[in-house]
């Protein structure tokens, strides 16, 4: 004390600053901070004083005290102490976590490898499922413009009317929008998908079905696409219609079909019968602007007449056939561009009669009408939602594991708390360990997603289009994985951390471990977690069960045609330049040639296969002898088919006959109707010989066919008619062949037959009828397998969780059980005691889960076939499955409990 008395004022002030400032420092560092600063200031003062003393002695100067400048510097440096204190407050957490907690957490993970593996794998599964789903969302919705610079500045542009908002643009309108584009818009491009037939003249090989785009001349420039080989379209090639037949190949197509041969640039290929010069090859990665499609080539807009069929549309303002994209100026918002375009649209509507009533609407690419609108987003949303449920279950599981471990670490925590560690500090430590687990789980999950991301290929519909979706684990997916991992820490780590650090654990020091671990509150949390897991699993499993049942029903359904030994292949005469008369002859000859092939039982052509993509056509009609009720409109669905259609497709003839080769354009107009038409419109009179009026034409019914499914497998019977393709000609058809043996075996012979007639026509989209039917069941199968997979994961996780909790309970109650056994409880009584505990939790979880499932399954009522959303069998079977599985999970620990040696158990106390 005496030391302090003689201190100069300034030193006392400085030390006082430190004393007061210590409250700024974080509690854990307060004492050291104060000690350090006081000591350093004290020593500095003494050093300054001594130096001054020496100098004074040496120079004999009068000034004996520390100089003013030195005092100011010392004051400034002391003020820096406060900054240091502040800094510590902000950083102490990371400082301490970085060093101590991490090292400690790492050691804990290594010390309990079983626990660590279980937790990491569980989290990995949950995170992996989510990362996979997100990579799909990323691939389908976010990365639509692969390889395009500034992809986020592109939005889709559609025309609108009062009732529709998904209409394509006409070319003159596109040009006007482009020429008069407002400040908010950098540029516009227009394009349309065009399937074509390509012949490589040099190779003289089979003609190929290719998918290209007809694009505006500025397409590549606006998208910022440079060709590594050759060039893109010049300005001149965008000016004169039909004058410059040039084509740019996609990198993928060039590699696939030309083996990456650079000499392809300058070569001539035939597209739909017209010679085109290859002027360039696109960069790798750029696949065009059709969502999900991997395009083969691009042709300038001015050449659309050569590769498309509907005649010259460049000057027709009323012809809406182009998709368009707007590239916004940097910094311009979509709303601004929309407002600007609205003004323009009003101008055009006022100037041109064809534009009257038309508006425009901009869409973000992911919900543009051309990419399936928000429908794909909806499916993806459901999938992501399901994955989130799986992650929640996984988190509940790991939380349970952590709680169980916290019980066994009670003493350690209690000692730390008693020795003065703050609760925050202990929570921090426990959370650090959770973070380590989550990080490991995130790594495992992301690694898993590398493998599972490609499973999306299972879910791509078997459509006759070059659909390609390549999910990659890129930066955005990794960011998502990291965010998810951090979020999951809160879900599974927070509750155990708070519980494990509660002050009640200090009592652990006073009591036996067994008594404390049975702490009712912790046990309750663990039970709640298990109940939640069971409930969530029930929801997933019931949903999966409903879809499985629905899939079963769908597979058992009679589509109305035979699926055995059928071969389908598409033929399109339009690109080859056939007119209607030549086309009729061609199909007649083709069918007679195919029918002569060995192994062919029957053959026909059809405009479209039932239950395919693209639905059905329908037409308003009148039926002679049937008076419609007021306001009744007779709508008949129809298909155009060739001779022997019913025979080839195995559709029963109820009355009359099938089409024959004599049902030609020169003969009287005929039609075959289905039973529904006969029943509904010819009640009490024969349908055969009846007449249907379609537009100006009257057709005579020559046959009645059995009802079938036409647009989708779930539909109820609808009135349907078959029109002879020779009388209602269509050039794009499907060739259907019924064979005696393996249908694919005759493909070469069919190809040969076609080639012998015209070498420019490719046979494409070759498949069996069974393959084709997979389309009909596509949605059912996809949802069922997805939900089924996730449901199984959920079941396994919930079972493991329940097992862990029951096993924990048995350990905790060992003493009590020992006592019971000592007092004469039978083995069976002990087992049922434990089983009751498990069944109690399961029962509650099942009850909650069933209620949840009841609410959730309503949402996809429209997707289910022949199954009620409250299907008793599914709900019952799921419940039974869960009860059986959980019983098994409970029985194992129960048996262990029953074999407890009472003496050992009591001594254990």
């Amino acid at each position: 004390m005496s030391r302090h008395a003689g201190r100069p004022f300034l030193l006392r002030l400085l030390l006082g600053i430190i004393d007061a400032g210590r409250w700024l420092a974080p509690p854990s560092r307060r004492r050291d901070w104060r000690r350090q600063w006081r000591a350093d200031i004290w020593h500095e003062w003494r050093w300054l004083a001594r130096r001054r003393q020496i100098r004074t002695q040496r120079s004999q100067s009068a000034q004996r005290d520390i100089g003013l400048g030195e005092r100011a510097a010392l004051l400034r440096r002391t003020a820096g102490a406060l900054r240091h204190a502040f800094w510590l407050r902000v950083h102490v957490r990371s400082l301490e976590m970085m060093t101590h907690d991490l090292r400690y957490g790492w050691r804990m993970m290594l010390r309990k490898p079983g626990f660590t593996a279980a937790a990491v794998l569980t989290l990995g599964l949950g995170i992996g499922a989510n990362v996979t789903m997100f990579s799909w969302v990323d691939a389908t919705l976010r990365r639509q413009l692969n390889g395009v610079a500034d992809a986020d500045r592109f939005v889709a542009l559609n025309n609108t009317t009062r009732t529709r908002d998904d209409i394509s643009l006409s070319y003159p309108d596109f040009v006007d929008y482009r020429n008069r584009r407002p400040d908010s818009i950098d540029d516009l491009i227009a394009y349309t998908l065009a399937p074509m037939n390509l012949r490589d003249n040099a190779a003289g090989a089979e003609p190929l079905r290719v998918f290209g785009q007809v694009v505006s001349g500025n397409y590549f420039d606006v998208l910022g696409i440079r060709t590594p080989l050759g060039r893109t379209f010049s300005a001149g090639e965008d000016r004169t219609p039909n004058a410059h037949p040039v084509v740019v190949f996609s990198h993928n197509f060039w590699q696939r079909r030309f083996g990456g041969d650079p000499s392809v640039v300058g070569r001539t290929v035939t597209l739909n019968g017209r010679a085109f010069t290859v002027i360039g090859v696109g960069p790798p990665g750029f696949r065009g602007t059709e969502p999900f499609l991997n395009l083969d080539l691009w042709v300038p807009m001015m050449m659309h007449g050569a590769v498309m069929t509907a005649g010259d549309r460049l000057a027709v303002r009323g012809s809406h056939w182009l998709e368009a994209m707007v590239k916004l100026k940097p910094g311009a918002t979509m709303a601004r561009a929309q407002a600007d375009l609205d003004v323009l649209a009003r101008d055009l509507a006022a100037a041109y009669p064809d534009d009257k009533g038309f508006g425009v609407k901009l869409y973000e690419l992911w919900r543009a009408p051309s990419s399936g609108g928000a429908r794909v987003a909806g499916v993806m949303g459901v999938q992501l939602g399901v994955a989130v449920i799986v992650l929640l279950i996984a988190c509940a599981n790991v939380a349970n594991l952590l709680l169980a471990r916290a019980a066994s670490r009670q003493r350690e925590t209690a000692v730390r708390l008693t020795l003065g560690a703050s609760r925050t500090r202990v929570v921090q430590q426990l959370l650090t360990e959770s973070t380590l687990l989550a990080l490991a789980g995130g790594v495992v999950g992301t690694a898993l997603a590398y493998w599972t991301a490609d499973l999306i290929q299972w879910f791509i519909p078997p459509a006759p289009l070059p659909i390609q979706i390549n999910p990659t684990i890129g930066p955005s997916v990794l960011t998502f994985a990291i965010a998810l991992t951090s979020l999951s820490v809160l879900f599974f780590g927070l509750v155990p951390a708070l519980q494990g650090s509660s002050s009640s654990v200090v009592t652990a020091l006073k009591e036996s471990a067994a008594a404390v671990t049975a702490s009712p509150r912790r046990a309750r949390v663990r039970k709640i977690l298990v109940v939640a897991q069971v409930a969530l699993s029930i929801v997933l499993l019931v949903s999966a069960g409903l879809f499985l049942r629905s899939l079963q029903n769908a597979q058992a359904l009679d589509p109305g045609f035979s699926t055995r030994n059928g071969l389908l292949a598409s033929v399109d005469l339009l690109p080859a330049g056939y007119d209607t008369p030549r086309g009729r002859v061609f199909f007649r000859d083709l069918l007679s040639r195919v029918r002569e092939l060995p192994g062919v039982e029957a053959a026909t052509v059809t405009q479209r296969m039932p239950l395919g993509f693209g639905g059905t056509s329908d037409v308003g009609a009148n039926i002679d002898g049937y008076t419609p009720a007021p306001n009744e409109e007779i709508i008949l669905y129809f298909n155009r088919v060739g001779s022997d259609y019913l025979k080839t497709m195995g559709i029963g003839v109820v009355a009359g006959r099938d089409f024959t080769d004599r049902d030609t354009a020169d003969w009287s107009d005929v039609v075959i109707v289905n039973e529904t038409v006969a029943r509904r419109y010819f009640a009490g009179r024969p349908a055969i010989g009846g007449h249907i009026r379609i537009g100006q034409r009257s057709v005579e019914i020559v046959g009645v066919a059995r009802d079938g499914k036409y647009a989708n497998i779930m539909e109820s019977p609808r009135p349907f008619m078959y029109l002879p393709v020779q009388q209602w000609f269509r050039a794009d058809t499907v060739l259907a062949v019924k064979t005696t043996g393996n249908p694919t075996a005759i493909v070469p012979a069919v190809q040969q037959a076609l080639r012998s007639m015209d070498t420019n026509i490719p046979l494409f989209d070759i498949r069996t009828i069974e393959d084709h039917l997979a389309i009909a069941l596509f949605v059912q199968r996809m949802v069922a397998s997805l939900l089924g997979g996730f449901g199984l994961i959920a079941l396994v996780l919930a079972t493991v969780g329940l097992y862990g909790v029951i096993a924990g309970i048995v350990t905790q109650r060992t003493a009590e059980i020992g006592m019971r056994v000592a007092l004469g409880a039978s083995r069976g009584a002990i087992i049922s005691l434990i089983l009751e505990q498990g069944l109690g939790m399961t029962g509650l979880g099942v009850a909650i889960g069933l209620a949840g499932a009841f609410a959730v399954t309503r949402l996809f009522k429209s997707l289910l076939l022949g199954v009620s959303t409250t299907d008793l069998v599914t709900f019952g079977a799921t419940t039974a499955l869960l009860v059986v599985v959980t019983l098994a999970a409970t029985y194992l620990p129960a048996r262990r409990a029953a074999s407890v040696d009472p003496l050992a158990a009591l001594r254990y106390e």
Partner: protein
Amino acid sequence: MAKSAALAFGQVSILHAIADGSRFGFDIMDATGFTSGTVYPALDKLESLGYVTSKWEDPRRARRDKRPPRRYFDLTRAGAEALAAALARYKNLKPVSLAAWRIRTSEG
């Protein structure tokens, strides 16, 4: 841990000062010219990174000298290595002529 990450110039200066014999906060401030609000946090940070260790003087000896015990710093092996690596990097910066900017690099 990211020990291979390049150290900031300030951190290098502080390591250098410690290696040069400065052991206490105020000495390091004098040696580097940094303010206390920079040096003390940096020391804590370097310690958490494992480049520096700190010890308290033996309190008995301090009491004998009638002064408070001080916290002093020393380089760890990792710190010495990091300092060597950083100095080697700075050595790559050859003197350049800045005459065009009318800046004289020499003393004066």
